């Protein structure tokens, strides 16, 4: 199969479609790429046709994220919205031992099958896997992208602490939209670099949102990266949790970036490979963790909201559960995130995984027993997502998790396991 290159000339003529994963972050990424001269368009389509196109064009035992992302692209190409001679696609490629490294190739196969073989596909990767003369990840672009992710994480993190409590519906997303717009203009200049000032102003604005002070159940979301973040993948899990009167806790995507960088270091120490990337990995980790710690400090200083944990605490959390050498898919990161959530007082966890996800057999389902042994009050539910799994089945499991969460909460506050007034009888429960 001949690869269609994305050439320099295409930068001017072609619209690049990218699939959405994180609604807040990707709006900024779209802007950043446009500023660099790429005519990018974010695909935010929904509907059952997307999964159907995926099923029709990708081997059906392939993981759900691939079905959705590829289905979404095919669906877009078929929609008639785009001039097929002037459209390109972009997809990320992580390059690990998981199937996800193959999404790019599966997409190309699907395009050939659907008769779109002339459409160029750009691989977005940091491991020099495939190059296109028309698309260059310059240092400037890279820095802007990292900032977009860092800001996106902050907005998502704080917004999730406001949404469940906002007095007037929509005010939180109003602040988020305002900041996305504001940051987008900042990316034109160098103003986006004033990270502390931005954090401070953000926090002030969020803290001014009128919120009720009821106590809601906190539910952490972990999982395969697409399933964890993309509403299209997890059937709007965040909205569901909000509707069920819970507070979603979703850690930032930059941790995944740090995880990938860290893996280079681990590979070097375990196997002596990837020597040449060590200086870059070290530099990048210290740069990103520096930005992250400024975010944490800003939140702590302002005082209204919970701050996320540091990357170091995440590294520690996984110790004793899984080795850092387990690096395929979300690898040790997923296990560590579950433990970190519990450490931070979030006992209730939804683990979103595509049905049949290989790494998750190890790092998610494989670790739950051990986590529960160490933290008996942990309330973890694994939810499988795939085109055939019905929403009711998923929601039923989520509701069970929520019911248990409420029971645990009531008992932690001195209540009993009974629904009504009957006093506690034999029921072994040790408050954590």
């Amino acid at each position: 199969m001949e690869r269609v290159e994305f050439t320099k000339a295409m930068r001017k003529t072609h619209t690049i479609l990218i699939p959405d994963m994180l609604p807040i972050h990707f709006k900024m990424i779209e802007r950043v790429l446009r500023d660099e001269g790429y005519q990018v368009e974010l695909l935010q389509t929904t509907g059952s046709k997307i999964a159907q196109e995926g099923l029709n064009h990708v081997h059906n035992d392939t993981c759900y994220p691939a079905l959705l992302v590829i289905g979404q692209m095919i669906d877009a190409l078929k929609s008639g919205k785009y001039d097929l001679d002037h459209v390109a696609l972009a997809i990320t490629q992580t390059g690990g031992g998981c199937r996800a490294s193959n999404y790019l190739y599966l997409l190309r196969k699907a395009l050939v099958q659907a008769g779109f073989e002339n459409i160029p596909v750009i691989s977005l990767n940091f491991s020099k896997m495939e190059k296109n003369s028309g698309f260059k990840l310059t240092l400037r672009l890279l820095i802007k992208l990292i900032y977009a992710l860092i800001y996106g994480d902050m907005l998502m993190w704080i917004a999730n602490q406001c949404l469940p409590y906002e007095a007037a519906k929509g005010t939180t997303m109003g602040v988020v939209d305002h900041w996305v717009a504001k940051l987008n203009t900042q990316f034109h200049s160098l103003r986006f670099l004033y990270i502390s000032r931005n954090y401070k102003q953000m926090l002030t604005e969020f803290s001014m949102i009128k919120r009720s002070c009821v106590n809601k159940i906190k539910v952490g979301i972990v999982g395969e990266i697409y399933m964890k973040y993309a509403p299209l993948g997890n059937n709007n899990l965040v909205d569901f949790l909000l509707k069920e009167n819970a507070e979603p806790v979703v850690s930032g995507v930059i941790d995944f970036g740090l995880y990938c960088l860290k893996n280079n270091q681990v590979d070097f120490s375990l196997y002596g490979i990837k020597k040449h990337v060590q200086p870059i990995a070290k530099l990048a980790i210290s740069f990103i963790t520096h930005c992250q710690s400024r975010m944490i400090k800003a939140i702590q200083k302002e005082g209204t909201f919970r701050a996320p944990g540091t990357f170091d605490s995440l590294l520690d959390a996984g110790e004793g559960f899984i080795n850092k050498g387990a690096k395929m898919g979300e690898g040790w990161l997923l296990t560590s995130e579950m433990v970190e959530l519990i450490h931070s007082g979030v006992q209730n966890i939804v683990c979103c995984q595509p049905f049949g996800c290989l790494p998750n057999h190890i790092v998610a389902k494989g670790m739950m027993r051990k986590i529960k042994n160490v933290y008996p009050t942990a309330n973890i539910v694994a939810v499988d997502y795939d085109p055939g799994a019905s929403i009711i089945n998923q929601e039923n499991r989520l509701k069970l998790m929520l019911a248990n969460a409420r029971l645990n909460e009531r008992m932690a506050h001195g209540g009993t396991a009974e629904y009504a007034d009957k006093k506690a009888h034999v029921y072994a429960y040790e408050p954590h």
Partner: protein
Amino acid sequence: MYKLGLDVGSTTLKSVLLSDHDEILYQSYERHRSLVREMSLSKIKELEPYLKGHEVQLAISGSAGLGMAEIGAFPFVQEVFATAGAVRRYDPDSDVVIELGGEDAKILFLKGSLEERMNSTCAGGTGAFIDQMAALLNLDLNEMDALSLKYTQLYPIASRCGVFAKSDIQPLVNQGADKANIAASIFQAVVDQTIIGLAQGRRIEGKILFLGGPLSFLKGLQQRFVETLKLDAEHAVFPSTAPYYVALGAAVYAKDSTDIYTYEQLIEKFEKIASTRIKNHGLKPLFKDNGEYSEFKHRHQQSDIPTQDIHTYQGDAYIGIDAGSTTTKLIMIDEKDRLLYSSYTNNLGNPIDVVKAELTDIYKQIDNRIQIRGCAVTGYGEDLIKSAFHGDCGVVETVAHYTAARHFNPDVDFIIDIGGQDMKCFRIKDHTIDDMVLNEACSSGCGSFIETFARSLGYDIEEFARLGLTSKEPVDLGSRCTVFMNSSVKEAQKNGASVADISAGLAMSIVKNALYKVIRARSVDDIGKQIVVQGGTFLNDTILRSFEIELGRNVIRPSIAGLMGAYGAALYVKTKQLKHSTLISEEELAVFSHTSRAISCGGCTNHCNLTINTFQDGSRHIAGNKCEKPLGIKQTSENPDLYAYKYQKLMNYKSKPGKRGKIGIPMVLNMYENLPFWHPFFTELGFEVILSGRSSKQMYAQGSQSISSDTVCFPAKLVHGHIQQLIDEQVPIIFYPCMTYNFDEGISDNQFNCPVVAYYPEVIAANMELDEQLFLYPYLSLHQPNRFYDKMQAFLKRFGCDISIKEIRRCGELAFRAYHAYKNDVLKAGQEAIQFAHDHHKKMILLAGRPYHIDPLINHGIHKLLTGLDFVVLSEDSVPFITPYEKVNVLNQWTYHARMYNAARYVCKQPNMELIQLVSFGCGIDAITSDEVKDILREHGKLYTQIKIDEVDNLGAIRIRVRSLLAAMEERK
């Protein structure tokens, strides 16, 4: 204050009414036939004498109740939670609760850390599953239950998912195994399912409360649980309230509610619920209008075959018998292929009796006017029927079907056959079978699925199908496996979909499942232009119509759609032009009888469960065997078999006691590849290497309690059993390293192991009790020896084993040499095998799998089956690597899988060699490799055959595939 709890499940409606003093005033358990809302309303009306004049609190539970609760603004309680609440109130000293419902299975651990689990989306060992199995055995639940108590032997039946179990049971039925044994085995499968799928490593002990309909009605199921969990009467509690327990929980939960209703208010609310319809995102109706319907009817009446009167015809006749999985089809044709006699009978789990009755009937009608000149048998029960009635020959199923379709439409280029249990389709190119797809075990719930589904809703299949034709808005139920469809149906019920819409929606799903999941059609044109559809399932007009709609093309459905296999067999035997048929005579038939007996074969360690049918003339037929041994025939084949060769080699490693004590190595996953390194390495270091030994079902069962993911591949699940074996043998150290990277063999872009192979030791460490032993699972890589020596030295030192780097290096170098010697030896054996095939004019099959596929428990003896059919068997690592390697269209980054691409390219250059790809169910990587391997082979005009294997031991289906492949190879010559 009264408390009313309603539990609206997937198939049943349960209710419990509590008095002011929490005594149960009323309880009920009824099937709701999918009329959820109407039933609920009439239930309230029925309760009028109780409710009138009282204040009532109400709560709803159950998967289909959510929609009702939303409309009525009633409190809703998740069903597991409801159960837990009722247990705390009524049976507080329970330790564990096991509850089986219609389609859900749940387990609650109440002591210690509270844990509540439901079956995952891919697991069907529940009430609906038992219903389906009973239907399969043609028993009602009570009969099945009573029979199961009289069992003498248990068969291993896949316990993961209902669909799998079904394909395990079917061969047993066809072999004539005792129904009592099958019934008990089905219950045992449900028990195993509960332990593996639900408990997932946590022990079920203490006082156990068994709840839900099946567990309270089925004594046999109770017995299996009690025996398996080794419980006494005190610790196994089967309360009389078991079927209503969730409703009871809902009633208890209702107490908390602040909403209080009168009877009249309830009626008003439920009337509103019954009249509310939620808009489904439905599909288009099957027919626009009546005109379209009559055109459809008329068109399909065209496809007919002429008949000939059996009572007047004089001359020769030919009989074809298709002994299918659930039905037995028999056809007799005359010289001009006209139909003299036909029958389509549900074999009621006993095909022999059916054939006997039909033959008797035929003999009665033919007098001396008609001479039977041949009888051919095809289908699952081919061997049994052929030997029972002395048929002239057997025909591979696929060949029989093509023969029939070709007779019908000489230009046919695509045939799809959906039967009760299986689905096959073939593409025809230049009048030979070019490509063939049989459904994998996973999607085998084809026609009989609709039938049992209809029955569980309280409809017979004809009525159910007829209703589907009238559907205004078929529900969209997705296209996955049938277990998923069940829960989609549940969702539709929740939204108040009508039976007609469900019927049509199911038909659409079955069709989509066939097209996209089984055939993997990429577009309509991919299917073909001259399409013949056959199989009993297509006699259902709803399915036929759905198929045409999905394809956007008209197809031919012969009027004998369900009999095509038998028709093909009859045509086939006719071409043989036999002088005399060996078919059993009228006299012999009159005294024909048979008995069947189940025994466990002692021929080898496989211990196959054999069913021995003995006929009145003293002849016997043995089924269930994997090899020829129990048949009393000397090993027929001396053909080289690389699978057996490699396995033998690994099993022959000898250990000797050493100065450093014992070290245990599990024979699992990548150990089948790396043992030739580790064994000499540790032996040379002075360890006595203890291997976990050969896999067996018992071994698997021993470790199954600690399996943490029920959807991981079988080879990975098997690791638990091997480790358990080493634990039981009290080997002080168990060594099982994590290996991200593999050797670079020069045929791939990267050299990864798959995530499961790479990190499974982590799962073992996290889920198995290894307190007594040292479990060593270092992260190592063998592709850089120097690095390996350093790491290994440091690692062993940490565990108090201080060995000098010099010694490690010496032993390591020796081990690397041994490993390469092993690899070269396999290669050499491969070359010799190919030479043997050339010299003896044998056909060759390259069985392309992963290293661990040589484990006979994993490959189910497929290689033996192949040598039995006179093939020479090669493995993917026994042919030379073609370097520089050609790029493939995907990222070629896994060492084991790169070998398959290489093997495919190698096969393309060899005459007389075809490739069969072995795929373990759940192997995500193969979703990528299989398309690629297929493309490579097809580019070069080779056939592609994929066999999916799991813990299911269903050699029958594999046999059909391999024989079809053989037939296709012959035809292509």
